[in-house]
């Protein structure tokens, strides 16, 4: 390990560790690798599965599907969620759809093409082996969901309908009106409830994980707070799965649900799990713009709207006429102009930055000039209002409800917002983290999307991980179990419980002068300004300094009222914000160290002549996996080299 000090990085913020040599992905032809891994993974016979226990944190697509599947297989599963029912997990809010390489359209799609599109869409920062497996699993996911009764959109012949999404030229997206996430989650939730009834899964709602218990080098349990009684509980198992979602709420304003948080993964990180590519965040191009400082969250308008909606701004920033009064000649359909091949369907990172650029030029619309038009006038003229209503009705209603404007008559106003985080805990090909026995699925892992996720791929990955990948890899680890029983007397457990209780007491005793939300909002502003759509060396350094100060202020001046022994929502938020502050610093460090642009990570210093993201494959074709450097210590960077044997690395072009 050497302290990294060079001319560029004069005041070093990190240490460099060993590279990660092995991800456990088999070698050989890419289409055979998953078969080979499944074949070589040790199995557990059905009678022995009953003796093995697994804890699963989170009940979104990745958690509920894993819990149901492992329960069906016969393991003893214990599941936790912070909501009042597993059905509320934030997967439910996904609107647009789920990709699968079914080629039902006969439009040239294949597993290989889905693999290719995803690797390219991720700007060559994802693992080929993982992405290929994801594309393979996609086909089975649709079959599974249909069998569960997920009401996908159908055509008059009774067969499944498909639509297109950003970054691809085939129609491979399966959808259920604008509520695909809801329908898929309800499918997984029902499968989970069926296992709860069968007694294979024990479900704890309104329970939040606050610490991981790592005993004798293995993940063996969790410390949980019962959010109603405040009781601090310990639960033990042979393996722990984190399916706790992404960390977009580090920005305070995002399309995430209010409760989405990083605590489960961050606590695991502090216990030794590497955090990979934290700076890869996805800013979604089509969200409803911010209306005021009181705003608590941002609402996404599905990317599917870009199939028929046309995005534009006035050619001149001086043009303040109402949208319908602006003649065609005075409009700039800038995506169609700059990217004629993909037009309004360019990938999300590109569409977001293009919106930012036209607003920076002073051509934005709406309050504060932070918005662009998404216009359906042409689609309504071409298809008729009825057809547009059938496809997008609920989204239009949602827009009208929030803004008080009728999108059938005036164009929607949209602006980019934080939506998804590609980074997450580092996992190997088996989805096992750097802590033995700790598995991470769905958005919580750093996964398969590289530096940018394509639309309709999050649902695909969550379900692939939970239904098909994890249940075929975790057995390899569990086959060595059951492991020696542990209880609260184990020093690791006692330490974890004491640290959770100590933190809670601290929050309740500070009695400072600022609310938890005021700190969260301030953190969000710092992150959005310096670690948002465009990042610079100078800005990131400023942000790191500011976040460190904010951390001090938080721990000395936050005000949390009430007690632990009750439903205390401010106390819940305090713990989450404390972890977001620490994560925010790591995100900025990761963004600072990656001196290239790729996908959702855009460094102003690294762009092509026409302003596109410019990668530096010679230096940065790796995963950045960060090891916790101790309280107050510097994080330690481990690089996992990325090798492309199938898809040629090149500058992405959607022109």
């Amino acid at each position, binding site marked *: 390990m050497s302290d990294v000090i060079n001319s560029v990085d004069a005041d070093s913020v990190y240490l460099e560790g060993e590279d990660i040599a092995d991800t456990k992905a088999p070698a050989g032809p890419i289409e055979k690798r998953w078969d080979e891994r499944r074949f070589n993974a040790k199995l557990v016979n059905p009678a022995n599965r009953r003796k093995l226990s697994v804890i699963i944190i989170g009940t979104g697509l990745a958690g509920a599907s894993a819990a149901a*599947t492992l329960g069906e297989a016969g393991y003893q599963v214990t599941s936790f969620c912070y909501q009042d029912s597993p059905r509320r997990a934030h997967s439910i809010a996904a609107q647009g759809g789920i990709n699968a390489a079914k080629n039902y359209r006969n439009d040239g799609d294949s597993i290989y093409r889905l693999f290719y599109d995803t690797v390219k869409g991720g700007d060559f920062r994802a693992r080929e082996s993982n992405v290929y497996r994801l594309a393979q699993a996609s086909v089975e996911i649709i079959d599974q969901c*249909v069998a569960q009764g997920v009401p996908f959109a159908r055509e008059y012949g009774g*067969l499944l309908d498909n639509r297109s999404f950003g970054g691809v030229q085939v129609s491979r997206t399966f959808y259920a009106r604008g*509520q695909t996430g809801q329908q898929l989650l309800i499918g997984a939730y029902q499968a989970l*409830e069926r296992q709860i009834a069968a007694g294979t899964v024990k*479900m704890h709602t309104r329970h939040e994980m606050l610490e991981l218990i790592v005993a004798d080098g293995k993940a063996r349990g969790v410390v949980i707070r019962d959010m109603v009684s405040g009781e601090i509980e310990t639960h033990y198992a042979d393996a722990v799965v984190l399916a706790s979602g992404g960390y977009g709420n580090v920005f305070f304003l995002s399309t995430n649900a209010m409760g989405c948080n990083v605590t489960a993964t961050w606590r695991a990180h502090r216990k030794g799990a590497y955090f990979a590519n934290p700076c890869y965040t996805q800013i979604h191009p089509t969200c409803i713009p911010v209306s005021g400082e009181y705003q608590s969250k941002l609402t996404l308008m599905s990317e599917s709207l870009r199939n028929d909606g046309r995005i534009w701004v006035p050619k001149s920033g001086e043009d303040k006429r109402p949208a319908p009064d602006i003649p065609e000649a005075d409009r700039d359909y800038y995506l169609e102009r700059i990217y004629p091949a993909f037009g309004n369907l360019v990938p999300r990172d590109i569409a977001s930055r293009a919106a930012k650029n036209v607003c920076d030029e002073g051509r934005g619309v709406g309050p504060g000039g932070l918005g662009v038009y998404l216009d359906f006038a042409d689609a309504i003229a071409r298809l008729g209002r009825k057809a547009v209503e059938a496809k997008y009705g609920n989204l239009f209603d949602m827009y009208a409800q929030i803004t008080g404007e009728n999108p059938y008559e005036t164009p929607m106003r949209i602006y980019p917002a934080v939506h998804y985080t590609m980074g997450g805990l580092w996992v190997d090909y088996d989805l096992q983290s750097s802590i033995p026995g700790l598995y991470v699925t769905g958005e919580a892992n750093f996964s398969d999307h590289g530096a940018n996720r394509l639309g309709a791929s999050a649902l695909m990955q969550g379900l692939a991980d939970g239904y098909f990948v994890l249940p075929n890899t975790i057995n390899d680890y569990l086959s060595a179990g059951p492991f020696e029983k542990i209880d609260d007397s184990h020093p690791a457990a006692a330490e974890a419980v004491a640290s959770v209780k100590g933190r809670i007491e601290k929050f309740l005793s500070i009695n400072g002068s600022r609310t938890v939300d005021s700190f969260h909002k301030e953190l969000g502003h710092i992150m959005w300004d310096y670690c948002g759509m465009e990042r610079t060396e100078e800005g990131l350094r400023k942000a790191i300094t500011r976040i460190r100060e904010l951390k001090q202020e938080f721990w000395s001046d936050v005000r949390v*009222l009430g007690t632990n022994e009750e439903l205390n929502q401010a106390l819940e938020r305090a713990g989450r914000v404390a972890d977001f502050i620490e994560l925010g610093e790591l995100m900025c460090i990761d963004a600072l160290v990656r001196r290239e642009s790729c996908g959702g990570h855009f460094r102003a210093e690294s762009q092509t002549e026409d302003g596109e993201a410019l990668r530096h494959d010679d230096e940065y074709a790796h995963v950045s996996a960060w090891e916790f450097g101790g309280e107050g210590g510097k994080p330690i960077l481990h690089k996992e080299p990325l090798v492309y044997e199938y898809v040629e690395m090149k500058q992405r072009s959607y022109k």
Partner: protein
Amino acid sequence: MNITVRVWRQAGPKDAGKMVSYDVPDVSEHMSFLEMLDVLNERLTMEGDDPIAFDSDCREGICGMCGVVINGVPHGRGDSPVQTTTCQLHMRSFSDGDVIDIEPWRADPFPVVKDLVVDRSAFDRIIQSGGFISAPTGTAPDAHAAPVPKAAADHAFDAATCIGCGACVAACPNGSAMLFTAAKVTHLGLLPQGQPERKSRVVGMVHQHDEEGFGGCTNIGECTAVCPKGIPLETISRLNRDLLGALLNPQT
């Protein structure tokens, strides 16, 4: 605008509750109803008062976590023609000087946890009693093996849009959860995949519905009037037909 809210405050399940009045000045019409409560809570915290506990998560009308009774109407739609969840209700629906009553869902099977937060786990237990199709992972045939007529698929979808918020129960004078139960029976019963368990499903779910202490349905229709997803009352007729068929003819 300046408004006054009268909010149900209850420290815990066993404590007595009461309505407490708070003035909320300078409310923007663009705020959502819950953002108005956020602003009030920030102030209460600074004044040293316990903030008001209420449930919410996605705040985009889909997760079903939020829900309070506003001026006597679950989710507070009032006379508006637009269906809404509490989180999607905006302050532009109110006027300067309004006094707004805010209460939790009130039904025996939904005990109050604190203030406006209630325990809706009874809904999960109804789903456990049959609200699923038994299709273990990996057993599925190709998705196109069983075409579903578009009309059936669309109707199934309409019922499947239920978000499990519980407004139907809060609105029903009988405290019935029949709209919730019927939505699931209808969703799965209209699909070919749902046929093998159609009878056991309806019998199991209705039995659990009654066990939880929900009241019977007398076709009043308050449920569908407040349903944020517009689940139609006819789903309950469908449930009744399925239930009758299952009880008269359990084997076929």
